[in-house]
């Protein structure tokens, strides 16, 4: 998942990172910048690069387009029609804003992904009479596949309507324009469906469901925090579960940006995380280890220190926020509803959120909380960002909002060196996308709710399940498209339960999976369409998050399609023809025509953008941000909140959200779940507090993003499995209590599933916590043990209360030697 | 057992046994010839001598399996300037060649006795150099603490003489048995004459005494080596952990039974008048037990290869 201007969660008010029109002489500044930085030393046709050492015929620009938040150009050496080597970006330098975009370990292993034994070679249909997922296939022709899909779509639309057809979340190919699999509305599959009346939408995404669901209530929409290079202007940097050095490993993206910023400016950096992440290892002056899902409690403790010692930026809170104290509350809410009252124990719960109170919940000693509260309270500005681990919890919306609130307490919103407390924003090029279409259907479910919509569609309501655009779904999901994604099984919660649901083909009648590898989700297809890899087709690639660097990549067709694989554009064109909408779908254009159209349309907003031919030659085109740093979020709001109000009801930052207060009184929630108007800490099902009283499953399981894979992409590449083997992290104390030693094979289990993998006994994880790197490929053995070690064999379908999102870090389990 | 290094385990133990047996035979020759006459001695020692050849060849064949590209095998002698491995190969081939030459000379009674004695002495020294080279291969690695210690050459030489002595004893008794059986098959009977019986029993007693003494030395080396490793800490201490558990105990027990208990029996039972079969069984069993123990020991030795660094 990326969070950049070009790829933000949809369904929210869209704001531009860079107000191009507002920036004084914006385009002129950009033009100047481009002249200075657009054509960099060393930029030139890749074909001029040395290719003699491997005896290669040519070197062609391509890229790595997986969902890590980075996006890296690659140069591919071709010999006899085969890719023989992959080379890094050789344009630019080692300076922030003009850096070489050096691909990480994953991109460097792409050759073994392209030529993987798991590549799908020919269209397949589930053998008649066999169970879904049994792996019994019959080879069919492309024509048979197209015919069957088209006739099923026609029948389902007639019998159930367009809302019975669903595009499942998938981010296996990201950054591409024609080939992208996310956001769903911009995919070629959506374009096809929109030509025939649309499909059932979803809101949110598996990466950031809770924070995206919360940010609208707090800031009025997705803002993004200051960019990470802007930390140079801070007195203090605080990263809440933000792990750029493992999740965004590009040497042109945030790993490079954070490392260089730290190296050049050495701003004191605090990392808050249950793991001593590689970001903590690389950047942190201090590591604050806390129990998963307790960030909001920690913030409350910090706020107690700040309020007690009058360290909060009261002027900022009075001017820009509502809900901090009783003098700044919306009308019609009871007294004692402010955040200050909550902190001081003057609210409904009557409990002061003292450092001692927070210590019991978080595990962080009270003395540490006092020290940190003073340090954060006295530093100005404070550069606060959060990754998406804190929000991927049952109380994730509040977790995210609590960190936003801390940013407000320090008055650091809208100034250089500060931020909103969201994930980092970045400078990026406002590339156009004429390929995208609109969905005539407005009904939407939560990204995480599709299994419920298959199981009991018409029972899903707005008040109980977060259905949007309708009070209640009319029909269940009868068909699922899964293009370049693994959320059909591997990345969804509770895989064992999900798989059982999918095995019943009377509910969902047709599952079409488009992919180039036999993924876990591909195993559960009825029809399997073999996609080409990105090296087998042309596309223009939108940039990743890279501080103050803007760029775009033209990834050319490096080799001919392997086997009998075809492009997704061709697949959709053929199905469109059978549905009688080929003209509407293609508009008479080939894939290359569309790429040219993207460049032409983008040149209207970015006059310096080279022509398609030039870009194709250059491979990657770079622009340094015309401003001091990549992004300062809400600078306009900070400068003049009246002229530039937020999209919240009050126009201000809503620490107390009256909208949420309304929801808390009207929405129907499962027993024990709560929605609160304030970013309160909530003790939830399978949360940190329950873990300590749960005799059966006393360990909290989180699933950190892992270097071997981007989610599940690259998870079947031999070089990657060798470089970064799947292991479960366990604290030495917890291991000793169970007789577990480093590298012992163990089983982690709860009532939902059981996984088997080696143990990494390490002091780098907090006591009482296991981390199973997410995205490993679910591989059940004969006894129902997942020997692939997928964390989602343990996670739950239970959604978070507001966003109805995946709370996958809220999981309890036990571990034992295998 | 360390299957991975099986070729080296077999090669080093068999080669050391061959060297030891050759040297022990020489000692028997030197001491016994004066008392019992060369003829009697040669009759007893020659078959043992001829058995050394196949043993060594077997070891050398095993060592070939350690090479992963036998096509390039001849290159291994290129680096005698600095590589103990090259030196091992050179001395190993020299020992085999000289030993083969000496065996031929004995068989055909080439040259004078004096000349053959000189040849035997040179062969024996070459064999001792071979054992030294072998041990230096391991001793000379400062990166492997478990090997980079005086215990490596000491242990290698103990193995050499322990197995060499027991092998000679077993070979002598085997020769007697074989001659008796051959005589029985041809309808006659074979009885060793008095000097031969005397020679046999004296040798066996000597072998027994040597085995017990060497066992004592070995049981000194092992704890000293281990305490040294443990005291050094770090990687050395880590490798000391290899010398524990079932295999290690089995090794100690086997050697103790063979070189201790049975050898004591041998010393006490071996008289010119004692019956041949029990003595033969005793000496053969002692050899088999100790050979087993030493093979396990060598396996553990390779297991202890934990290198410093990364």
């Amino acid at each position: 998942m990326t969070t950049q201007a070009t790829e933000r969660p949809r369904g929210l008010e869209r704001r531009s990172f860079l107000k191009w029109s507002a920036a004084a002489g914006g385009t002129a500044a950009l033009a100047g910048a481009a002249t200075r930085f657009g054509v960099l030393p060393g930029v030139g046709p890749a074909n001029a690069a040395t290719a003699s050492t491997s005896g290669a015929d040519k070197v062609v620009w391509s890229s790595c387009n997986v969902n890590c938040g980075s996006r890296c150009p690659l140069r591919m050496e071709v010999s006899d029609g085969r890719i023989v080597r992959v080379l890094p970006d050789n344009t630019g330098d080692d300076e922030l804003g003009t850096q070489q975009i050096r691909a990480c370990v994953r991109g460097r292993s792409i050759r073994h992904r392209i030529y993987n034994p798991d590549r799908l070679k020919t269209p397949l249909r589930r053998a008649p009479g066999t169970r879904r997922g049994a792996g019994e296939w019959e080879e069919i022709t492309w024509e048979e596949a197209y015919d069957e899909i088209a006739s099923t779509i026609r029948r389902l639309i007639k019998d159930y309507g367009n809302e019975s057809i669903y595009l499942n979340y998938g981010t296996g190919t990201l950054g591409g324009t024609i080939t992208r699999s996310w956001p769903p509305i911009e995919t070629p599959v959506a374009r096809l469906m929109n030509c025939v009346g649309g499909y059932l939408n979803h809101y949110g995404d598996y990466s950031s469901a809770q924070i995206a669901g919360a940010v609208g209530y707090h800031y009025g929409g997705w803002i993004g925090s200051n960019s990470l290079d802007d930390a140079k202007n801070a007195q203090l940097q605080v990263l809440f579960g933000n792990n750029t050095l493992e999740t965004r490993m590009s040497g042109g993206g945030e790993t490079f940006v954070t490392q260089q910023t730290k190296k050049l400016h050495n701003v004191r950096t605090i990392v808050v995380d249950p793991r001593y992440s590689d970001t903590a290892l690389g950047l942190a002056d201090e590591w604050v280890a806390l129990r998963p899902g307790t960030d909001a409690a920690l913030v409350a403790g910090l706020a107690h220190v700040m309020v007690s010692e009058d360290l909060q930026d009261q002027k900022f809170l009075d001017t820009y926020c509502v809900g901090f104290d009783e003098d700044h509350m919306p009308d019609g809410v009871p007294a004692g509803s402010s955040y200050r009252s909550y902190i001081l124990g003057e609210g409904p719960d009557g409990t002061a959120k003292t450092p001692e109170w927070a210590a019991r919940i978080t595990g962080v000693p009270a003395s540490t909380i006092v020290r940190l509260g003073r340090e954060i309270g006295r530093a100005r500005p404070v550069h606060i960002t959060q990754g998406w681990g804190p929000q991927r919890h049952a109380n994730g919306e509040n977790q995210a909002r609590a960190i936003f609130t801390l940013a407000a307490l320090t008055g650091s919103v809208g100034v250089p060196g500060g931020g909103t407390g969201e994930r980092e924003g970045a400078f990026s090029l406002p590339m156009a996308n004429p390929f995208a279409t609109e969905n005539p259907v407005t009904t939407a479910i939560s990204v995480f709710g599709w299994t419920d919509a298959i199981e009991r569609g018409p029972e899903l309501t707005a008040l109980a399940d977060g259905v949007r655009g309708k009070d209640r779904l009319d029909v269940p999901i009868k068909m699922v498209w899964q293009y370049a994604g693994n959320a059909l099984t591997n990345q969804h919660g509770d895989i064992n339960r999900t798989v059982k649901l999918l095995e019943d083909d009377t509910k969902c009648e047709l599952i079409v999976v488009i992919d180039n590898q036999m993924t876990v989700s591909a195993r559960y297809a009825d029809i399997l369409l073999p996609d080409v890899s990105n090296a087998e087709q042309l596309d223009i690639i939108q940039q990743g998050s890279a501080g103050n660097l803007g760029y775009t990549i033209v990834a050319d067709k490096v080799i001919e399609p392997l086997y009998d694989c075809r492009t997704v554009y061709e697949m959709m064109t053929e199905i469109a023809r059978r549905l009688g909408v080929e003209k509407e779908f293609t508009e008479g254009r080939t894939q290359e025509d569309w790429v040219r159209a993207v460049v032409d349309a983008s040149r209207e907003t970015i006059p310096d953008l080279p022509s398609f031919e030039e870009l194709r030659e250059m491979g990657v085109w770079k622009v340094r941000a015309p401003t001091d740093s990549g992004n300062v979020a809400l600078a306009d709001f900070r400068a003049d909140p009246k002229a530039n109000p937020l999209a919240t009801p009050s126009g201000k930052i809503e620490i107390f959200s009256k909208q949420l207060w309304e929801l808390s009184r009207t929405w129907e929630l499962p027993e024990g779940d709560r929605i609160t108007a304030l970013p309160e800490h909530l003790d939830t099902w399978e949360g940190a507090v329950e873990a300590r009283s749960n005799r059966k499953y006393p360990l909290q399981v989180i699933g950190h993003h892992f270097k071997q894979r981007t989610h599940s992409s690259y998870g079947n590449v031999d070089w990657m499995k060798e470089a970064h083997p799947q292991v479960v992290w366990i604290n030495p104390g917890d291991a000793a209590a169970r007789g577990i030693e480093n590298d012992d094979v163990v089983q982690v289990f709860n009532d939902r599933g059981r996984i088997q993998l080696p143990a990494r006994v390490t002091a780098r994880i907090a006591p009482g916590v296991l981390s199973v790197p997410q995205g490993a490929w679910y591989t059940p053995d004969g006894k129902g043990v997942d020997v692939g070690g997928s964390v989602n064999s343990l996670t739950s379908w239970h959604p978070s209360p507001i966003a109805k999102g995946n709370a996958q870090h809220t999981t309890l389990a036990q571990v034992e030697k295998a | 057992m360390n299957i991975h290094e099986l070729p080296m385990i077999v090669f080093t133990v068999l080669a050391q046994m061959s060297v030891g047996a050759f040297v022990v035979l020489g000692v028997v020759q030197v001491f016994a010839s004066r008392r019992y006459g060369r003829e009697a001695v040669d009759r007893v020692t020659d078959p043992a001598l001829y058995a050394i050849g196949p043993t060594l060849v077997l070891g050398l064949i095993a060592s070939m399996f350690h090479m992963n590209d036998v096509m390039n095998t001849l290159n291994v002698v290129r680096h005698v300037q600095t590589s103990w491995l090259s030196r091992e190969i050179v001395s190993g081939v020299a020992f085999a060649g000289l030993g083969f030459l000496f065996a031929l000379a004995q068989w055909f009674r080439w040259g004078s006795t004096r000349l053959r004695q000189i040849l035997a002495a040179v062969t024996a020294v070459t064999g001792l150099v071979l054992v030294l080279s072998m041990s230096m291969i391991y001793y000379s690695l400062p990166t492997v603490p478990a090997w980079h210690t005086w215990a490596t050459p000491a242990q290698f030489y103990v193995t050499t003489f322990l197995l060499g002595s027991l092998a000679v004893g077993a070979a002598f008794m085997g020769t007697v048995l074989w001659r008796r059986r051959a005589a029985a098959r041809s309808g006659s009977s074979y009885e060793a004459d008095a000097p031969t019986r005397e020679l046999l029993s004296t040798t066996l007693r000597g072998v027994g005494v040597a085995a017990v003494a060497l066992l004592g030395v070995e049981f000194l080396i092992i704890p000293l080596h281990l305490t040294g490793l443990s005291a050094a800490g770090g990687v050395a201490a880590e490798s000391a952990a290899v010398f524990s558990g079932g295999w290690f105990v089995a090794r100690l027990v086997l050697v103790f039974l063979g070189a201790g208990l049975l050898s004591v029996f041998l010393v006490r039972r071996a008289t010119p008048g004692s019956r041949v079969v029990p003595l033969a069984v005793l000496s053969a069993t002692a050899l088999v037990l100790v050979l087993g123990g030493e093979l396990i020991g060598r396996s553990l030795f390779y297991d202890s290869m934990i290198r410093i660094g990364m």
Partner: protein
Amino acid sequence: MAQQLGFHFDQTLCNGCKACSVACKDKNDLPVGVTWRRVAEYTGGTWQRDGDTFVPNVFSYYTSMACNHCENPICVEVCPTTAMHVGEDGIVTVDEDRCVGCRYCEWACPYSAPQFNPETGHMSKCDMCADYRAEGEDPACVAACPSRALDWGPIDELRARHGDLAAVEPLPDPSITRPRLVITPHRDAQPTGAGAGAVVNPEEL
């Protein structure tokens, strides 16, 4: 004498991603099990627990390691075939026509530089991308490092710029082979022999 080449490794920047390692494998088409550049994670520390709270005292850092083309290359010294040899510029390479695959150098080298390739039956190792260098390009690992933690060049120049530290856990005492390696140490780097932590990923080396 030609300039003697070596590596510089900035431990403060390494996040253990192994792009160096895989870029090398891609360039040289190395199978699983043959890894010319490896990355060790050295970790140690303790936790203090007090009732419901805990305080970590933990350190961890990575070391990326190929071949240090040592001044006293023990692999060359012990090689029985002379396959392992030193070039003009101090670069140590394997002559595959001579190598017998005895793996003695593998025992000897404290950096795991010589790697046995079962596909050929020979040892194989880093030659600092002699082919790339001949064309004025950086070695694959250096060009790959997203963090810019790797550099190469004449060792005298590297030492003039970065000092001459190479005695950092888990590396051995540099006096053994005299590696042409300079390390800019991580803030928690332990001196060689301190033994406060351990390599936690030995199976990856």
